[in-house]
Structure formats: C-alpha cells, structure tokens
C-alpha cells in the first residue's frame, strides 16, 4: 500500500470591518433589510463610478505588517469579468497581479505543541458580491445587494498544510490574528471569514503535487476539518482504486458530511482580467505604512508566549483566551490588578464564559468590569470571602451591578476568620454529633467532610474553610474517648 500525504492550501476571504464599502459610501452593517445598504454604486446604475476608501487599504497594510510581508509600494485594481445576478456590474473589482500584500508567514500551533510557519503567498483586496436568495419567492430568485461592495481581503496560503487538522489550525490562527488586528469581526456564522481549500494527494516523499480539487465556501473551523478529512479519504480511495483525481470544484455538505462535485474546471473560466480604468493605481508611502505600524497591537504569537512563559497559563488556557480578542483583553485587564493570574484565567474561562454563554453576551460586553472581577479574586486571595461566597457575589454583580466590597459588606458575607469564634462553633457541633465523632475516632476520615459542612451551614458559608479544617482536626483529636 502506498503511503499518501495530503497537500492543502487555503484561500480565506476576510470581510474587513470597515463602516462603509470599499468603493461606495454605503454602510456594511449585517442583517439589514434587503438592499437597504445598497446605493447607486452598489446597484451599478448607469454612470456611477467606484471611489476607493482608504480604510481597507490601511487594514490590508496592517495585516501585511502582522505577517511580516512585503507591502506593495504601488498596487492596482483589476476587473474580473463574469455574469451573475448578484454581481451587479458584471465584473468584480479585485487585484490580479499587483496585490497590496506580498509574501509573508503565519506561525501555527500544532497539536503536538510544536510551531510551524505557514507561508502566505499574497493577500489582495477585492469587493464582495451580493446574495442570491433562492428560497424566498416561488419560481424567482431574490437579489440582496447589501453585501455587494463589502471589502474583502483574500489571503492565499502556500500549499504547506499537510492534514485537515493543520488546515483547521491555520484557519483558527488566521481568525485569531485578524480579530486581534481588529480588521475583521470574526463572526463566522455571518460569513465574515470564508474559506476555499485546494487539496491534492501525493505519495509520501514525492515532491510534485497531485491533481487538486477545490472545496468552496467552508465557513467554520470544524467544517474545514471535516470537509478536508472527507476529501482526503475520498481522493486516497480514488487513487488506491487505481483511479485519477479530477480537477474540479466541490461543495461541502455539512448535513451529510461529504463533498460533492459542483462543476468541472476543464472548461476553465476566462475572467478577462484587465486593469480597471475607473481607478487609479494606489501609491502606498512609507509614511502611510509607518502610521499603520503604530496601530498593530500585540500579536497572538507574542501574546501566547507571554501567557504561557511569563504568566504560567496552560497552552489550553492561552489558546482559549487568544481565540477571542475581547476575552484576552478582559483577562489582561483583570490580570493587571496583580492578582493570581491562574485564578483569574480560571474565573474568566469558567464562570465568566459560562455566564456569557448562558445570557448570549460576548466578551466585549461582560457586565462586570475587569476591575471588579479583579477585586473579587483579590478578596478570595486575602481570605475576605470564601470561594463559594465569591460565586454568589459574582452572580449578584452580574445581575444587579454594584461593587464587590459593597456587596460583601451589605450582605454580611465577610469570611469568618476569627479563631475563637470558629472554635466555639466547632465545639458546639462536636458535642451535638457524638455518633459521628465516634466514627471519626474509629478511623473514618471521610466523616470530616460532614463536620465541615455543618460548620459552614452554621456560619452561612462564611467560615474560613482552611481554618475550619484545622480546628476540626485538632478538636476531634484532643477530645477524650467517649465513655
């Protein structure tokens, strides 16, 4: 049996988070009434002309700087000609041979903990098409041009990904990067990042590439992985059976978890690319590049190193925080308070994430300010409150707002740290439960938990658990045997 190797390259279309479209003044907001975000330019009325907005250029430069790529000193826009009802001009304005961003690289983190740099061939600017809606009207297709003209950055990787998991890791890493750069909102379910995958199979050790297929429009990390897994298996099965892989475009059907042939590429499309005469070449000055450079924030790789190597978080914790820029921001703001960062990460990835999920809120809008969460963790560390009480304070703050210290005072939640007071409670409980005391003496250590529970109950959960344990052990041991 031949040992096969998959070779994968991804083209990821990233919707840039500009307020207006790339060549018109219409808004880009998602979910608006059909065609309400489409102006004369977007509809391609006779006589209208595209005018380039600067913001997509700045965002593309920002991306280029983040992957350490060459930024073109001059780039231009071309027309890609084809007819489709949701492509109003009959051509898409794109960049063919003078992309704004040249070769760069993106490090990805593999499951074995190693890091590999994936080459990025180029990234270019283009406009998005509208949407054809086939289900709304019987026998007709609806056209919604709200999305038409939304700026896209198409990021093309080298064929340097060798498994479905690597491809998914790359897509995830790219997602983390563009959201960190704040050039994309990263909402995969709104189509903010769409992935086309080119995949081929070759015998391991062979340099040349096999015939490829292209899987179009896969829009989630999981589906990228599943679609590629399916396609790798399919191609290997074809080759093992002595067949040949056919150059074609395939679609991934997530419900059936399979790819299906969409169209053959044999009659290759002729897009008749040529420079768009309505737009001038764009000169990108060093000055402009430098003005963008100062806006590039800490990148995911650097952040990951800081979290793992400096702060001692696990890879998993670091990964989850980096996935969501706002989570990382929230964490950084909490951690700034000089508290136990591991505890902070636990709280943020545990209680905070769960509550956000429950209430369908994003990390951009956590109802508890990072300062307050920091205080809460501080109050656990300085033993003002117990961990258990902290959770109830957290819920109160979440629902009603207010401050940590105020809530602790108002509700009398302060931890009971007074040793003599605790000793009184403990001796009362011991004398109330002679039977259980006997079990303890007979060596049934587990019964200690019962006594802790009783003390907590008697103190409304405010007793310092560490002290309770100590006192209980001491008191239970020193007591004379029961007559």
């Amino acid at each position: 049996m031949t040992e096969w190797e998959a070779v994968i390259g991804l083209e990821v279309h990233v919707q840039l988070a500009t307020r207006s479209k790339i060549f018109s003044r219409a808004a880009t907001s998602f979910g608006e009434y059909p065609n309400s975000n489409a102006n004369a330019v977007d509809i391609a009325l006779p006589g209208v002309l595209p005018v380039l907005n600067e913001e997509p250029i700045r965002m593309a430069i920002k991306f280029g700087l983040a992957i350490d790529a060459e930024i073109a000193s001059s780039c231009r826009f071309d027309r890609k000609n084809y007819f489709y009802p949701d492509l109003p001009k009959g051509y898409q304005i794109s960049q063919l041979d003078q992309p704004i961003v040249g070769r760069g690289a993106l490090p990805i983190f593999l499951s074995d903990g190693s890091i590999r740099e994936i080459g990025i061939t180029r990234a270019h600017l283009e406009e998005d098409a509208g949407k054809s809606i086939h289900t709304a009207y019987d026998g007709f297709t609806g056209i919604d041009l709200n999305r038409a003209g939304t700026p896209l950055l198409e990021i093309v990787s080298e064929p340097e990904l060798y498994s479905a998991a690597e491809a998914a890791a790359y897509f995830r890493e790219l997602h983390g990067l563009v959201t960190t750069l704040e050039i994309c909102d990263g909402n995969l379910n709104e189509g903010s990042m769409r992935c086309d995958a080119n995949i081929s199979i070759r015998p391991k050790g062979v340099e040349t590439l096999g015939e490829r297929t292209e899987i179009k429009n896969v829009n989630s990390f999981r589906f990228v992985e599943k679609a590629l897994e399916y396609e790798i298996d399919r191609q290997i099965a074809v080759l093992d059976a002595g067949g040949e892989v056919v150059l074609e475009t395939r679609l991934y059907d997530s419900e059936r978890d399979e790819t299906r042939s969409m169209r053959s590429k044999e009659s290759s499309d002729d897009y008749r690319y040529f420079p768009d005469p309505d737009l001038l070449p764009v000169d990108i000055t060093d000055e402009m590049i430098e003005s963008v450079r100062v806006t590039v924030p800490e990148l995911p790789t650097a952040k990951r190193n800081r979290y793992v190597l400096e702060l001692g978080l696990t890879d998993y914790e670091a990964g989850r925080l980096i996935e969501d820029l706002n989570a990382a921001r929230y964490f950084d703001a909490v951690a700034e308070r000089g508290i136990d960062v591991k505890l902070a990460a636990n709280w943020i990835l545990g209680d905070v994430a769960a509550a956000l999920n429950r209430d369908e809120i994003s990390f951009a809008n956590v109802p508890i300010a990072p300062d307050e969460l920091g205080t809460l963790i501080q109050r656990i560390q300085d033993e003002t409150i117990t961990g258990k009480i902290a959770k109830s304070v957290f819920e109160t703050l979440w629902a009603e707002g207010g401050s940590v210290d105020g809530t602790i005072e108002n509700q009398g939640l302060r931890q009971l740290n007074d040793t003599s007071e605790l000793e009184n409670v403990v001796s009362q409980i011991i004398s109330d439960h002679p039977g259980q005391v006997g079990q303890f003496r007979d060596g049934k250590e587990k019964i200690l938990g019962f006594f802790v529970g009783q003390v907590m109950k008697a103190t409304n959960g405010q007793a310092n658990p560490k002290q309770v344990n100590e006192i209980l052990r001491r008191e239970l041991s020193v007591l004379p045997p029961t007559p």
Partner: protein
Amino acid sequence: MNPYANMAQLRSGLDNGDFSAEELVHFYLGRINAAADLNCFITVDSDRALAAAKSADKAIADKRTGPLTGIPIAHKDLFCTEGLLTSCASRMLHNFVAPYDATVVDRLRKAGAITLGKTNMDEFAMGSSNETSFYGPVKNPWNQACVPGGSSGGSAAAVAAGLAAACTGSDTGGSIRQPASFCGVTGLKPTYGRVSRYGMIAFASSLDQGGPIACTASDAGTLLNAMEGHDPNDSTSAIAEATDIDSSRRPLKIGIPSQYWNDLDSSMAKVLEAARHTLESLGHDCVPVELPHTEAAIAVYYVIAGAEASTNLSRYDGVRYGHRTTSPENLDDLYQFSRTEGFGSEVKRRILTGTYALSVGYYDAYYLKAQQIRRLIRQDFLDAFMEVDVLLTPVSPSTAFEREALIEDPVGMYQQDIYTTPASLAGLPALSLPCGMREQMPVGMQLIGPHFGESSILSLGCQYQNETDWHALHPAYEHD
C-alpha cells in the same frame, strides 16, 4: 429673437430685459417642436424648463445672476438627469429614468443653465454618424440627406439649427469634435480628467470626456468653466487650475503635423491652408512637427475602447433596470435575450471585439500591445509640445457624408476618426471649430493643446473667430 445668438448675446439680452428667460425657453421649445424632422431630441422637458426659466427670471430681476443664468441648453442623452429618461439612445435603456444628476448636469444647473431636454446620439456613443440610435438618425441641418456626425450628433445639430444656446456632448474618440465640424459649430473635448465622468454613462472609461458644443469658442469656455473641476465621485477627475481663456494673447508656435496634412483631400486641404494663413496673419508661427505613431491610432483606439466597453456594458443584464426579455426560461436566456434585444448591432460588434481583445491568449497580442502603442502615441505628443504650443490639424478627412454611405462599412466608418482618436488616446484637450466651407458643407479645424492647456486652444479659437465669420454662418434650413 435671433436663434443663432451666442451665449454672450443672450446674457446681455436677458440682463438688459430685452427678453425674459421664460420667453427664451418658449422660443427654443417652439423651434425644437418645429424641427422635429431633424430628430435632434430624444426627450424634451418643457415643464421643468419653463419652471426653471421662471426662477431664472426672478434671479435676473434680483441681480443674482451667474454667467449661465437663464441660458437654455440641452444634454446629450448619456448624462444622467434626475427624473428624466436617460436612454443612451439604446433600447436597453429606453425605460431608464435616472434617479440622480450627473456631476456635469448638476454643475451646469447650479450655474443657472436651463435644461431643455436630452439630445439624440449614437447608441452608447458608439458611432460617427448618429445612425446607430434606437431613436433613429439625426439629420444634418445643412443638408438633411447628410449625417450630423457622431456620436454627439443630436447636440451638434441642435446648436447648428438654433434649437438650444449650447449643448453638452461627450467625446471618446472624436464624438464632440467630428459632429461639431460636420455641423459648423464649436466643440471642445477637454483634457481627460478635466470634467467629471460621474453620471455620464460609460463607453470607454479611460477615454470618455464630457465637454461643450456651442456657437463660439468663447461660449465653450464659459460652459467649461461651469463643468470642470475635481469631483470626489470620480477618482480620475483631476485637481487642476480652472480654465482662463483670456489669459494668453502671446504669439504662439503652432505645430503642423505632417501625418495629419499629407493625405488630406485637396479641397479639404485648401480650406485648412486658409485657416493656417489666418492664424499666421494673427502673428502666430506655424512650424512642421512629426507625430510618427499617428497611423496606429485607429487600431489602438478600437481595441482599447472596445475592451473597456465590453465590460462597462456588462451591467446591462436585464436584472435590475433597463430592457428585460419577456419570459426567459432560465438565467442564460435572461442574459442572452435581454442583451440581444436591447443592444443594436454596432454596440454588439464592439462588445464582441472588445471581449476578444481581453480573452486569454489574445490579451497580450491585442489589449496589451494596444496599451504599449498608446504610450508611444502619447509620447509623440509630449515630444511635439516640447517644440510647439498647440497643434493645428483637420478634424475629419471629409465634410458630412450622406446617410447610409458608411453604415454597412464599419472599417470605413472607423477611418473617419483618424484625426480625432490620437488626442483621445493621449488624453489631450482638443477644440473643433468651423474654418470654411466645402460644397456648402462646413469644414472644421482642430486645435490640440497640451494636457490642461484648454486656455491656450480656447484663446486661439477666440482670436480666430474674432477674425473670421465661419462660426457665424448658419444653415439655410428653416422650418417655420
């Protein structure tokens, strides 16, 4: 009222109260109506023209006038006009009422001009005879058997016949200059980028330029002043100093390019030679210059213009506006039948040749090669303007020809553009003005200036028209 009064005369007539703007508009509307057989207009906008005239009269009474207040003009039917049919003389847009004003329309209105209506043209500005219009051919007022030239034939004929004080036109390869010469009026193609293309329905984006067609060079300058200037809606519109036609009266060095004069028909050459002597008698110096790549201009022009047109016209697909076929079976039918029915044969020819020139395997040999030669043609002019201030050439190899003489001979028709396409390819300003008659038909001369050199060619044109009366000749045609 004198139907051939120039704008300067109309200005003083209005300001002195000799007639009101309303009377003037009534007068022109009457003439347009009576001249229906010339077929100059696709749409006449009487009601709004009269309403605008009333406001103009108020402004004149209040002495709040600009140079164009109350001056009735018409727009070539490829300038979008809000609330008015903008058809591009095509069945494809025979139902298209523009929801916005082109920048040119907007600026002229703000300068006080009154829109009488929209003038006929070759379909999508593709043609040199105004015979490709969906609304039928325009007749030359000098001889109704002849064409008015194209594609701005309706505008040129309307000015010649005294149906409007002036008109807008557009020039891609000669579409202002050639009809101006055929109709004995003055037309200016400005420098590429001088006038905004926003709202001017595109034919070939790297060549299209709007401009005025008027009775005199002075009027053309007045109109240009209102039309020109940077427009944020057009990335290719330039930031340039405004045209000032009174600026230069110094003696100029006028280049006579042999490539434009050597093959000229002797009767045409005689008229052009006389014009040259007149300019010399005004103190200017004529010297020979060479523009060696002139010969390639027509081929280069038709490759580039066709290529750009083929994609500019892709938006006419029957989906959102314009002509749509009835009961298409599927999407391909919708496209194919809407476009087959909506476009005329000349438009189809150019879409096909342009598509061919951009196709894989032909792009390098046609489109890319044409762009390379275009640069050489441009360089010819830049070299020439190192030696001379302006160039003097014919506008067209002949005077207006008869209808149907060339319509079946596309290459012969394209040859008509031999003297106008080079300046288009180089993006240069060029003025076409009457300089004589041949067999009762007007002959035009062309003054080509360096980039943004409108001031010098218009000034020279004014000097010439102060010295001669060719621009003051009018067709014997009368309809009342």
